Every structure is written in C-alpha cells, then in structure tokens.
C-alpha cells in the first residue's frame, strides 16, 4: 500500500507544475499581446500624425514652387520655361516652412531630415489642332507633366518618407493665331451676301467732306453712325507684326470695302491713299498721284481729282486717269458735289459697267456710302505727292478688296470738251471707234502706249466691282499694303507671325478647331488638341472665379486658361497688378472698365500719350482674354478696356449677329483685339454713332511677341502617393 501511494504524490506535483507553467506561458502571451496592441496603436497613431504632417510639408513645398513659377526672374520660373520636355530638378535652396508648419513641427517634436527632392518628370508637349502648325522652336513651350516631390521627417526616432506626384501644365496666356489680330471676323461675309443694296451691310457709312458726319442728310437717315476705325498703334506703324493683323472671311468669300472719297485730294477720312500709283498697270513711268484736272465738263469747268496722266502711243495723246472714292460729293444730288452744275455725270462716264449699275440701281444712295470698317485708321498721307504713302504695315487677310471708281479720259490735241471718256466695256480688248477733234476737223484713235496693253487696262470702271469678274478680275485692289508687291489677297499661306506659327488650313477653320469643347472629356485632358486640354482650373460660378482672381481693385490674376461655368459679370478692373490668361465662359460675359491705372478723366490731349505709352509697355503676361464659348454677345458695360482680347465665336452662326456690344458708350477706348464670327456692322455703326467722342481702337504690340508668354499651373491634387516608414533609429 505504501509503495502504491508514492507514485500518486508525484503525479500531483507534476500536475501542479504543469498548471503553473501553463499559467505563466498564458500570462506571458497575454502580456505580450497587450503590449503589441499598445505598440500597434502607438505606431498607427504616429503614422497618421506623420502622414498628415508630411502631406502638409509636401503641400508647403508645392505651394512655394507654385508661388514662384509665374514670377518672372526666379530660377523656378525659368526651369518651367525651358524649351524642351526633358526632366529637370527644382531647388528650393532657401526653403523656410510656413509659420503654421513650423508651429506644428515644434508641437509634435518632428525633425525635418534631408533636403526635399523636387523634380520635373514625364513632360509631354500639348497638342495642337491640325490646322495649326507650331514651329519647332515652340515645341515644349506648352506642356504637361508632373512634379515629383519627396521629403522626409523623423518622428519619435522613427524616419518617415513621403513621395508624391503633382501634375502641372504650362500653357500660353493668349490664344495662338488669334492674338496676332486686332480684328478677326471669320464669317463677316454673312454681312455682305451681295456687295450691293440691302444685302451689303458693311458699306454703310455716310461720307461727306472727307468725314463721317454725325448729322446726315435726311435721305441718309438710316445710315447715321460712325465707322469702326482701327488705329495703328503709335510707334509701331511700320512693324507688320506689332501693328495688329485683320482677317475678314470666310477665306473663300470676297469682301468689298468701299474706299471713302475726298474733296480735295486729301482728307482725314479718305481711303484713296490705299490706291497706289503702281497699282495702275499702265503707269509705267511711275507717276505719283496729284490733284489735277482730269477732264473738262461740257460747261468747260475743269474737274480735278487725285489722278495721273499716262502718255499714250501717239505724241500729246494722254489717258487722264482719276480715282474717286465713295462720298456724297460724287452723288448726282449733291449741291456742292463734283458734278454739280455739270452736264456730265458719272453714269455717262462709267457706261454700262454692271457693278456701277448694280450699285446705283439697287441703292440710289450707295455712292455716298463708304466702308464702315476702316482698317488702317485715319489718313496720314503727306501733302507731298513725291513721298508715296503706303499706310501702316497692317496685314489684312482674306479676299478683301478695296472698291473705288476709276474714270479715264482720252485727251488729245483739239479734243472736244477737253477729252473724251473711255467708258467701261465688257470686252477688255475693245477698240473704240475714232474720236473727232474740235469742229470735226479730223479723227484720232485711242492707241495704248504699249502693244501688250488693252483698252480694259485704261477704261473707266468700278474697281473691285464684284460683277466684272471676267473683264477686270486681275486688276482688283487688294486691301493690303503688301498688295503693291503681290497684287493678290493674303490667305493662310501668307500668315507668318513672329512666333513662327503657321496655318495649314483656312483661317475660318481655326475657331471651330481650337474652341471645340467635348463635354464627355474632362477639362485639362492633355490628349485633346484643343483649348480644353489647356484648362487648368474650372470654376463652378463667377463668384468662385472672382474669389480666386481678385477683386480687380488691388489685383486680378488669371494665370493660365480657366473655365467659368454659367455667366461672368465683372466690375471695373482698375488694378495694375494684373496677371493675364484666358477666361473661357460657358454663357454670357459682361465686362466693366479695365483701366490698368490709367486716369481716363483727363483731356484727350493728355490721355492719348499716356494711353499709347501704357499699351507700348504692356507685357503679354498682363493681357486678359475673355472667350464666350457659346458665341453669345460679350457686353461691355464699361467703355474703356486696355489690354484685352475678346473672343466670341460659335460654329453655328449662320446670320449676322452681335457678339461684342458696347452697352454704355460715351468715350470708347479699346486696346487689344476682337475676334468674332460677325461684328454686325449695322449695329456697331449705330452704337459708335451714339458715342460722345470717336471710338479709339488700338492693338497692343505685346500680343504679337515672338516668344509667347506662358503660365504654369500646378494642379491641386496629388497622384502616385507613397508613404513609407523605416525602423526606429536611435
């Protein structure tokens, strides 16, 4: 029995020891588990704290880069504008965290470790529509890519790193192609369905005494108004790039502008300087125009006109060629006109010219109506005819022709009445019958000076008439100072702005291609070859836009291409701190004055020099562009806009419509450019007529800078986010 009990004592001891071991192991594992929980929580909490701190740190770095990216002169400004798409490194050598970040750093006991690394990566050029051919030198000017930002901290002895990508884009601050134009109307042909009568809504400005008087004779009451005068910017008249171009389209539709006439050779509003003596093909001697008697009327009165004498084949035989512009003085009903008290009138001289017939038959007042678009400002022709004047070097694109009347008299010894008119003949090789001398003593024949010349080269006619295409199409006058060399209209092939951009297609293809917005694609989609890919920010309302851009009193900053949903109504922008860009607006735009610190309440004598000095000094990165994407009218509540381009274009415009309008017009001053489908000249002429002073339109030379100004937009979101935590380092 004793032997049997011993083993049982041993069993209890073993059981006890076993139980104690289990309890110890269990306690140990639970304790470990609890301590791991605590550790896990601590690491989790610290990671969250470090993550938000690192994000704030990276955000501060990006913010400081963004702040310098559009400040001219900084290293960061230059890095973004390198003319290539390679990688680059940005250095924030004097980086100082903002005060909130510093406070937070101290509060949390965080230490910045190492220098933050910031690089420009993944850069690709933005695309252009097919119609635009940017030059090689601009490759990489507009681009998109991302900023690669890496930074690190130490928090509770543990290193934390963050690396992230922030997308950016570099875009031009103005619209390519269009910025070269002071006026761009790609469907103005809709306002001249026929260049005569009621369908001609361009040649509608009453002209008299070399002026466009505000008060017109009652017969012309419906033509009351002022033309749209595009002045050349003083100091830049001879620079074809900085003078501001004009396009009147469509590309394949002719536009006829009636040149305004004059009373005594010269006149402030006369357009006849646009007819160069060289344009007259038979003027082989290169004579200059002078005010000279062209013919004697049947009363023996000498009628003097701007003209030249062209010697003919036989000695003392002359073709006396005079030119007439459209003005009240050439109408038959003008009491003090050219043909007043004369038995000759234009109808006899022009003969059966179909253009002349159409002009006077369809609208009896037409001869007094000049173009409502004056593309070269007023006439600054010198009085001395030996100094030929070709006007400002403003290039005009499109099939734009200057229309005027040419009258030719054949003068020979003993001519009856001082010479015989050479009227229009549809057959340009027409041989007129012999002319009688005084008292019918003998007969003389009209013989051109040279064998290759024809009657049609001399005859009286409406030049650029529009109905004489077969007879005289080769002698239309292109409204373009360069036409004295080329004698042909300028199309897209001749478009050669200083920045090297060229067009591969028609001008009227540019608007629809560039401003196409695909609602299915997002703004800023870099794969789109349109303005949509350039949109850096979208504002849901004008209030949001104004909050970002500024109140216009102290500053107004657009910086890039932005899109504003709905309407946009801006008050006066008087600030000089203006950073330019393109504001695309979904619906209507109404603008106040944009004065840039100029005091417009001063006499014109003092104002004009200040204004011209200001616009000569304006830089492209200060210029504002407002675009109505719907083609709805841009309403100008103020009538002073300096350094502004207005664009309102829609592919659906099929009839003349107002796309820019002055609501309260008193003393209008506009410096910049306007691009519309149709200016609706009938309305504009009336509108300008209501102004108290002549409207002033200047181009801003900086719009044509050879190196376009760009803006950097760093987009407010992060991609490629990576947070890492290292082992604790003592």
């Amino acid at each position, binding site marked *: *029995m004793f032997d*049997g009990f011993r083993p049982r004592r041993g069993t*209890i001891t073993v*059981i*006890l020891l076993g*139980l*104690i071991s*289990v*309890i110890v192991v*269990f*306690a140990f594992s*639970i304790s470990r*588990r*609890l301590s791991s*929980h605590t550790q*896990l*929580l601590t690491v*989790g*909490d610290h990671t*969250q*704290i470090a993550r*938000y*701190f690192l*994000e*704030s740190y990276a*955000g*501060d770095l*990006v*913010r400081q880069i*963004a*702040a310098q990216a559009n400040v001219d002169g900084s290293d960061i400004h230059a890095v973004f504008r390198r003319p290539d798409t390679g990688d680059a490194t940005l250095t924030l050598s004097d980086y100082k965290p*903002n*005060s*909130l*970040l510093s*406070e*937070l750093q101290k*509060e*949390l006991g965080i230490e910045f470790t190492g220098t933050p690394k910031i690089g420009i990566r993944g850069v690709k050029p933005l695309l252009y529509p097919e119609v635009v051919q940017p030059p090689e030198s601009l490759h990489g000017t507009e681009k998109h890519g991302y900023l690669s930002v890496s930074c690190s901290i130490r928090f509770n002895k543990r290193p934390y790193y963050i690396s992230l990508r922030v997308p950016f884009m570099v875009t031009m601050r103005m619209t390519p192609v269009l910025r070269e134009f002071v006026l761009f109307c790609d469907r103005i042909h809709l306002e001249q369905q026929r260049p005569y009568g009621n369908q001609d809504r361009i040649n509608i400005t009453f002209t008299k005494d070399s002026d466009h008087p505000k008060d017109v004779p009652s017969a012309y009451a419906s033509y009351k108004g002022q033309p749209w005068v595009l002045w050349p910017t003083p100091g830049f008249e001879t620079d074809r790039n900085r003078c501001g171009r004009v396009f009147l389209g469509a590309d394949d539709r002719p536009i006829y502008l009636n040149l305004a006439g004059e009373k005594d050779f010269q006149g402030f509003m006369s357009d006849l300087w646009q007819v160069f003596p060289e344009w007259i093909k038979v003027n082989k001697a290169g004579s200059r125009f002078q005010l000279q008697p062209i013919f004697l009327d049947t009363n023996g009165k000498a009628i003097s006109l701007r003209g030249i004498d062209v010697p003919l084949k036989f000695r003392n035989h002359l073709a006396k060629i005079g030119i007439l512009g459209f003005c009240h003085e050439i109408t038959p009903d003008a009491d003090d006109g050219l043909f007043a008290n004369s038995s000759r009138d234009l109808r006899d001289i022009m003969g059966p010219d179909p253009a002349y017939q159409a002009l006077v038959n369809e609208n009896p007042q037409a001869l007094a109506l000049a173009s409502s678009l004056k593309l070269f400002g007023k006439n600054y022709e010198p009085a001395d005819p030996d100094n030929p004047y070709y006007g400002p070097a403003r290039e005009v694109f499109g099939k734009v022709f200057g229309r005027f009347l040419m009258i030719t008299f054949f003068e020979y010894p003993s001519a009856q009445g001082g010479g015989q008119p050479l009227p229009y003949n549809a057959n340009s090789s027409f041989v007129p019958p012999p002319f009688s001398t005084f008292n019918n003593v003998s007969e003389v024949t009209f013989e051109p000076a040279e064998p290759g010349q024809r009657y049609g080269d001399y005859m009286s006619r409406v030049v650029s008439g529009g109905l004489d295409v077969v007879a005289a199409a080769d002698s239309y006058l292109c409204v373009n100072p360069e036409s004295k060399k080329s004698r042909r209209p300028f199309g897209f092939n001749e478009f050669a702005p200083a920045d090297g951009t060229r067009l591969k297609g028609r001008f009227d293809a540019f608007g629809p291609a560039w401003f196409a917005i695909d609602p299915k694609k997002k703004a800023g989609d870099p794969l789109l070859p349109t303005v949509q890919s350039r949109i850096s*920010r979208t504002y849901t309302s004008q209030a*949001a836009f104004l*909050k*970002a851009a500024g109140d216009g009193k102290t500053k107004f900053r657009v*910086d890039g291409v932005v899109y504003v949903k709905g309407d946009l109504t801006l008050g006066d922008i008087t600030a000089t701190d203006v950073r330019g860009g393109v504001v695309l607006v979904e619906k209507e735009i109404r603008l106040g004055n944009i004065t840039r610190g100029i005091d417009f309440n001063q006499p014109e004598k003092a104002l004009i020099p200040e204004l011209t000095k200001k616009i000569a000094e304006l830089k492209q990165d200060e210029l504002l562009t407002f675009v109505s994407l719907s083609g709805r009218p841009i309403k100008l509540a103020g009538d002073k806009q300096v350094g502004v381009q207005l664009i309102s274009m829609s592919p659906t415009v099929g009839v003349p419509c107002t796309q820019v309008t002055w609501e309260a017009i008193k003393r209008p001053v506009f410096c910049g450019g306007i691009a519309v489908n149709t200016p609706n000249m009938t309305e504009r002429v009336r509108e300008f007529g209501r102004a108290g002073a002549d409207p002033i339109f200047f181009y801003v030379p900086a719009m044509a800078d050879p190196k376009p100004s760009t803006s950097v937009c760093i987009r*407010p979101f992060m991609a490629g986010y990576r947070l890492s935590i290292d082992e604790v380092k003592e």
Partner: protein
Amino acid sequence: MNRGMSMIEILVGLVIFSLAMVPLLSFSFTTTRGTHSVGKHMMAGQLAASLMDRLLARPYDEALVQAKELAAKRWMDALDDPLLVSMLDHSALAAHRSDIEQDLRKSFRFFQTNVAVKEGSGDEAGRMFLLTVEVSWRIDDGSEKSRQSLDLKAIKYREDL
C-alpha cells in the same frame, strides 16, 4: 477503493484548479477589455482620419467654411455629423440602410468629434489654415470618466496661389 481518489483528493484538485483559473480568467478578461479598447481606439483613428480627409479633399474655401461650421459646434456626437449621415442616403446603401444605421449607432455610441481651425496670419492669411480633428470615446461604455481622445493635425493650402 485504494486505487480510486478520495474526496479530499478531489477537493484539493478542485481548489488547485480554481486557484489556477482565477488568474487565467482575469487575464482573459483583461485581454477582452484590451481588445475592445484597441478596437475603439482604431475606430477613433479611422473616424478622425476620415473627417480630416473629407475636409482636406474640399476646395479651400469650402473646406474652411465647413471646418468653421464644425468648429462652432465644439464637441459633437459622431453620429450627428451630417456628412456621415448623408452618406447613408447613397442609393447603393438603401437596401440595408436600417441595418447600417443600427450598426453605426452601436459602434459609434459615445464617440465625439471636435474640429479646430487656425488660419494663417500676415502674408499667409487667406492662403492656409491648420486643421485639428479630435475624436474622443469611452473605453468603458458605462463610465464617462473612461473617456480618451486622439487628435490629428494637417494644413490645408489654397489651391490657386
């Protein structure tokens, strides 16, 4: 009879077993409480982070307005957060809305949030603000004294500057 266990032996065994079980049960209870507490702490962290992320994701002005509104309310029950509740309006959750609401009520009972805003001054005015999101909760549901809290801080920058 000699081969079996006496009553005393059985009683001794039971006492030993009971003595062994007391610390085991105590450990087990501590573990369960600890796990519960860890879970709540993690939920608090997630709640703070989600509120912070939600505010940071908004455009600057909206974020500032919303943060100020929340700051004005001081400590607020987590379930009173209108944005959290509005998420339940999502059509994808419609079918199980009542279950989810019940779950939320159960999980986030006694959770409170507090938001604080400190705007930049001087040159930094209007360009940034410091956002603090604090979440507190009860470790022991029955005791207000067991309340703990954690906070997260981040700086929100204006996007267009």
